């Protein structure tokens, strides 16, 4: 046990210390702690579940059971159309974001490591510029001048995608960059080049498939942000899911509860997919930004 050759004095002291340490371990040190732990845990569970339960209960208080769900799912054309609109905008956002971020992250790793701090700085700016301020600036900057985007439907759709792409930067860049870190991009690039592949081909057929898990987790997180986003969509007067839900909350009684439950389910699915994709990898937990 402790008969390592470290002198007589140490030999005398160590068994005594070990004894006290063993006693300390045997003592029910967690006795009081465990009660406190349970109390804290139960408060947390209540905080989490009571609002959900209240919403669920409210959504089921209609005279005809599930009438609220029936109304929004099958009778309210705006539910489906707004959800579809947000999903479509989400997909376009993801495609644009990937097309911008992947080549950039790849190029910075391969050729321009000295630009890394600048690229990182830009991708983190959306944390400093809240969506409210971003949309404020976009509205003012593009209402007149050479690019009056706020004047047309198409222009507004361009603006909302652009704003969401900016919001996706922090999440997309981080997941793509950690994906690239895990593969040997230099060798892959050289191998592809020696077989005569050009840059578009290298990116699309070599790099993209090799980091698809990272791309997927970044994409789902972006989708989760976009689907329920309210601030930007409402100021750009888009027929999106967030503004639809806000309007519903003002006009109807039981339907908003039903849609809140559905939207909670959607969040749950998105987070589940992200957790599933992130299994085994060392990606940090990430947080979306649509508050």
């Amino acid at each position, binding site marked *: 046990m402790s008969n390592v050759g470290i002198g007589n004095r140490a030999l005398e002291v160590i068994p005594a210390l070990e004894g006290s340490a063993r006693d300390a371990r045997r003592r029910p040190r967690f006795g009081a702690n465990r009660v406190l732990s349970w109390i*804290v845990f139960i408060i947390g569970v209540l905080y989490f579940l009571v609002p959900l339960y209240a919403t669920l209960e409210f959504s089921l208080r209609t005279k005809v059971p599930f009438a609220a769900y029936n109304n929004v799912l099958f009778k309210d054309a705006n539910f489906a159309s707004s959800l579809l609109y947000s999903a479509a905008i989400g997909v376009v956002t993801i495609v644009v974001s990937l097309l911008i971020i992947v080549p950039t992250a790849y190029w910075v790793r391969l050729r321009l490591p000295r630009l890394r701090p600048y690229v990182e700085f830009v991708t983190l700016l959306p944390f400093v510029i809240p969506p409210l301020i971003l949309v404020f600036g976009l509205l003012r900057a593009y209402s007149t001048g050479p690019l009056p985007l706020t004047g047309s439907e198409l222009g507004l759709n361009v603006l909302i995608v652009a704003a969401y792409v900016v919001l996706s930067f922090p999440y997309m860049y981080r997941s793509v960059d950690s994906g690239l870190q895990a593969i040997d991009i230099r060798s892959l690039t050289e191998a592809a080049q020696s077989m005569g592949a050009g840059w578009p081909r290298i990116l699309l057929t070599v790099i993209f498939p090799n980091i698809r898990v990272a791309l997927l987790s970044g994409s789902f997180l972006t989708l989760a942000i976009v689907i329920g986003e309210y601030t930007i969509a409402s100021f750009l007067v888009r027929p999106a899911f967030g503004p639809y839900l806000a309007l519903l909350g003002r006009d109807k009684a039981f339907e908003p509860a039903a849609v809140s439950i559905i939207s909670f389910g959607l969040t749950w699915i998105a987070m589940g997919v992200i957790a599933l994709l992130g299994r085994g990898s060392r990606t940090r937990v990430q947080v979306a930004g649509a508050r």
Partner: protein
Amino acid sequence: MTLLGVVPFFLFAILFLFFPVAFLVVGSFQDSVTGAPTIQNYLDLSEPNIVLAYTSSIEISLVTAVAGGIFGFMLAYAVILGGLPRFIRPLVMTFSGVASNFAGIPLALAFTFTLGLQGLVTRLLLTGLGIDLYSKGVGFSIYTKLGIEIVYMYFQFPLMILIIAPAIDGLKREWREAAENLGGSSRQYWQHIALPILLPTLLGTTILLFGNAFGAQATAYQLTAGLVPLVTNLITAQISGDVFHNVNLGYALAMGMVVIMAISIVGYSFLQRRSERWLR
């Protein structure tokens, strides 16, 4: 030539991030009538209603960051080291991931169904215990500053759990054993070893929570119909219609918000870098 690869990224950022923000920055230093350079807009931020909006926004963010931070830490500690059954931990982590992302309109609605005038808890308290939350005596309302704080806690403390859990895991068993072998008590271990190591992460995350609440718009707007004086509500009103009758004052208001966000993010990343020294 090599720079060409990053051109699309920076071009996009310039068009849809720098240019719009620069528009606000420049506007905030201009007179709304003459367009002449001025700092009057920033001086006008001292108008009582603007000061009130900033103070309540800061107060809400501060209260929910500190309370959410403390409670999140306690829950994370309870789950990881508090002797709870093992299966609870993945459960809490998953729930935290969902809760920290469940915000905005649906969250505001969920709390009106809980603690609103007709909310479930409100009704239960009335019928079960005879306590009327909305009576003059109790004076509670979810549609107030206190209400916003209660709602924000829903995404604040789970975020703390998500960030602090890996840090608690990072506390090495050897440190505790070393402390015990030197005769240190559990309290001494926490006071002199664990807390100092966790402190940068704890403070940093609290700052992050502050920014998280400060930048939030949709939740509070939906909950209070924009009636509680908050910076975000003022800016919302200003975008919808020039409530100050001074467009450029709105820009200065927005810049004030950006400055506060920037300070909190810089503080967070500084403390984050400090904490990485010990925890990897």
